[in-house]
């Protein structure tokens, strides 16, 4: 691709730009390239291989930190136990429900908000900052502000508002736990979708919009034929990134419901945490871990393909 670069660099390296032959520098350049690349590649390689192999090994082992005498290879017993665990299937369902619902809310809401905030209006810059702000709030803070100050069934602001309207206050996290978690997590991730989609919408060519308007396109055909196709790629990126983060939502549940009531908000992440670091059953938790990896891979096979084609498009431009 840039053979002049490859030849020129090592020659200069030696301090004798004109003295070097062309064969030696090429080799030296490959060496330099590997040398610079290897720290990052090796650490990521270790990171992606060693812990995963250990998880696989633990998942076929009886290993409980509380009873170290019992140990050894147990084949697929852990998988059978996990399958028959009454909280396992709900945890898969909850993980997918939480991910799907928040994705839907943040993408649909994000597109609508981005279209609205792309219009001219008074104080637009500041209003935009207000909308993206929740994304910068750490998960433990947003979960606790919602749980204690807004959703609390006795003292919370929503309870007070409902009292004022003569309604019976709702115990949000008790009666509608998953709905409440979805609300809290959407509050954090809708601003992210908004930020990305607004940036994308701003790169829409104004002339294209004007041309469509002159051709008599109304707001709806404008949205469906001009804006939405333009946002396709950005929406894909939002879906991919949010999926990565949403599949492993943990802190919000840890600080609000601790997976309850019952298994109502137990996601796979929380189940693995409670098996591993609360019951100290390393074997079972690792089995759950393997299933979390499998789940993420099933979901991401589609997503990586989508992004790969996106990036190809980028490089051609």
């Amino acid at each position, binding site marked *: 691709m840039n053979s002049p670069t490859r030849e020129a660099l090592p020659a200069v390296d030696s301090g004798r730009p004109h003295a070097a032959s062309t064969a030696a520098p090429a080799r030296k350049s490959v060496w330099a390239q590997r040398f610079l690349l290897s720290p990052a590649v090796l650490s990521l390689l270790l990171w992606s291989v060693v812990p995963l192999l*250990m*998880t696989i090994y633990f998942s076929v082992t009886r290993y409980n930190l509380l009873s170290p005498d019992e140990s050894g290879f147990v084949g697929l017993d852990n998988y059978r136990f996990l399958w028959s665990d009454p909280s396992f299937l709900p945890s898969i369902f909850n993980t997918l429900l939480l991910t799907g619902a928040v994705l839907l809310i943040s993408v649909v809401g994000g597109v609508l908000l981005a279209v609205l905030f792309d219009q001219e209006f008074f104080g637009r810059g500041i*209003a935009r900052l207000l909308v993206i702000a929740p994304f910068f709030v750490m998960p433990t803070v947003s979960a606790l502000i919602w749980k204690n100050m*807004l959703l609390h069934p006795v003292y919370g602001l929503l309870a007070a508002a409902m009292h004022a309207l003569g309604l019976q206050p709702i115990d949000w996290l008790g009666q509608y736990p998953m709905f409440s978690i979805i609300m809290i997590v959407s509050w954090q991730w809708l601003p992210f979708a908004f930020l990305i989609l607004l940036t994308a919408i701003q790169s829409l060519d104004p002339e294209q919009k004007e041309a469509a308007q002159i051709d008599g396109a109304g707001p709806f055909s404008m949205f469906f034929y001009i804006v939405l196709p333009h946002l396709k790629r950005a929406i894909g990126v939002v879906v991919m990134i949010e999926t990565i983060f949403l599949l492993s939502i943990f802190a919000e549940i840890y600080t609000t419901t601790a997976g309850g009531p019952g298994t109502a908000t137990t996601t796979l992440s929380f189940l693995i945490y409670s098996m591993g670091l609360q019951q100290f059953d390393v074997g079972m938790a690792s089995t759950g871990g393997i299933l979390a990896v499998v789940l993420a891979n099933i979901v991401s096979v589609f997503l990586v393909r989508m992004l790969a084609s996106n990036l190809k498009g980028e490089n051609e431009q």
Partner: protein
Amino acid sequence: MSVAHSRLRYGITTAVAWSLAILVFFPIFWMMITAFKTEEQAYQLSVIFQPTLQSFREVFARSDYLSFAGNSIAISLGVTVLSLLLAIPAAYSMAFFPGPRTQKILLWMMSTKMMPSVGVLLPVYLLWKNSGLLDTVSGLIIIYTLINLPIAVWMAFTYFCEVPKEILEAARIDGANTWQEIIHLLLPMSLPGLASTGLLLLILSWNEAFWSINLSSSHAAPLTVFIASYSSPEGLFWAKLSAASLLAVAPIMVLGWLAQKQLVRGLTFGAVK
């Protein structure tokens, strides 16, 4: 007619957009004002009150707030520096000496982000425990760096790709060696990009709450863990919860606001600019 129409439209857009903005921002606003109340005032849900710094004083007096904040700062800065040290050479090599496998390596790096953290929670916990990294600042720096390294490499890579190769080649012909080329040309030219890479790493590691909750308890716990301790009934001390939260959130929110454009690019691996 047309002028009146567009004025009406402007007015309605302003009203709707601002209502939504206020609705979205409200929980943060509520936290901000509650932080300046006393505990009694906090439960009166009023917006008119005599502001006080009492809750902030109590947060500092009753908890080791400064040590948590210090851990957050040490961890975020450590992650930023270490990630950049690993990412810049790698991105340089891939941007200026692309080989047949460069594209594959980049995609593979990103695919490591697909692995859910919880899938390796137990091995990492045991490895960290056995090597004395559990509940240490360096233990958290290592894990955050590994998590964020793909983002750092990608961002640095996209910024380096924008540096015109001709300039670097010209410098080489003038006798600059690789080192001089990087220090005197490449880094200054891509400084804004690298700065926003650093900023993104800072924000991500400041707010990370999965590994911090699981790998630290008292000694190395950052602010995310400190705030999580309010999930006990202590969280009903609203004014103190708000004061502690506001201090933990405010600096990063300001940085995020300042860097929003660059963040979009970093978070989307350069796919949206």
